[in-house]
């Protein structure tokens, strides 16, 4: 038996779920993420879990590409999703949910990198888990090359090439101008090119 607040109005609920709000949410057309958020705000925990299911692998891929350690990845992922859980009510929808989420991910990753000061890589973390179609040599080369890119440029590269975000979306995530994103990607690729050409036995 709880009183729920939804869109400024108080509702009484026996099971913690606002039925009236749920009916409204299900009837009105809206973005999938917003629907999950509305369900969560109406008291349905499943709304939050749906968001987690949708984004957990994407968050992991960003974090893993940046950190390279499974143990730290778990800590960061828990930190990220708990922040989302506690601050979802404050999400103002000025940007897409994914942009807001990636910003939290980027901040958590940078916090960890600051704590670590220098990025020390586990050799285990470099083990590739590429699918059978991929060349394991290439996958390892890509991973090692990415780890040689300074973290300030690496985040832009990861968001662009691994998550497929546009320059504009990356500028919202990293809170910088599009020109800065362009510059970060350009410089990051120079590092990558050097590492890859060296790895392939070419001349950098």
């Amino acid at each position, binding site marked *: 038996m709880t009183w729920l607040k939804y869109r400024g109005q108080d509702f009484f609920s026996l099971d913690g779920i606002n039925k009236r709000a749920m009916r409204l949410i299900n009837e009105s057309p809206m973005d999938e993420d917003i629907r999950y958020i509305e369900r969560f705000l109406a008291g349905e925990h499943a709304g939050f879990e749906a968001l987690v299911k949708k984004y957990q692998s994407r968050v992991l891929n960003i974090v893993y590409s940046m950190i390279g350690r499974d143990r730290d990845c778990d800590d960061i992922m828990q930190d990220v999703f708990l922040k989302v859980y506690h601050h979802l009510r404050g999400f103002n929808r000025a940007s897409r949910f994914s942009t807001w989420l990636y910003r939290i991910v980027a901040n958590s990753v940078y916090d960890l990198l600051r704590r670590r000061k220098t990025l020390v890589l586990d050799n285990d973390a470099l083990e590739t888990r590429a699918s059978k179609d*991929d060349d394991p040599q290439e996958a390892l*080369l890509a991973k090692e*090359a*990415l780890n040689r890119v300074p973290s300030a440029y690496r985040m832009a590269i990861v968001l662009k*090439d*691994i998550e497929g975000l546009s320059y504009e979306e990356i500028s919202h995530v990293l809170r910088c101008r599009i020109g800065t994103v362009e510059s970060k990607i350009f410089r990051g*690729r120079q590092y990558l090119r050097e590492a890859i050409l060296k790895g392939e036995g070419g001349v950098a």
Partner: protein
Amino acid sequence: MSECLRIQRLLSRYVDQEARESDAALVRTHLEGCSACRKEWAELARVKELIVKKERKTLPEELWPSRLRNALIREQNKAPDFSWDILGQFSRRLIPIPIGVILLSVGLLYWSVSQPMIRISTEDIGRESRDNGDSPGRDIGCLNFREGGG
């Protein structure tokens, strides 16, 4: 050469297919006639291809929802224990007390300094007693009494 530098700045966006149409046309025209920039473009395209093809991890659907469920339960069950945070909050509430004590001390000091100073020494009191014909006595502070009484 300056044309090549300009094109190379545009190449990253061109590889990402995010260059403006006018810039993309410029790059295409330039690449047809410049082998150095063509090599640069091919290398950048190769770099991008390698990273895009990098394997992605896929997690079991229920993994993090169940982990977070447990984490949230732990968070809710966690009783507020004594911590530096709590101490911090407690000490913040006590801040007015030392400030008040300091202000009071400064006020008292100011008050005592601003009073006219009267200096009476025991010698003065003794002299006054002799002038009045009283027997000399031992001066203790502002009191004057005779030993042996009487």
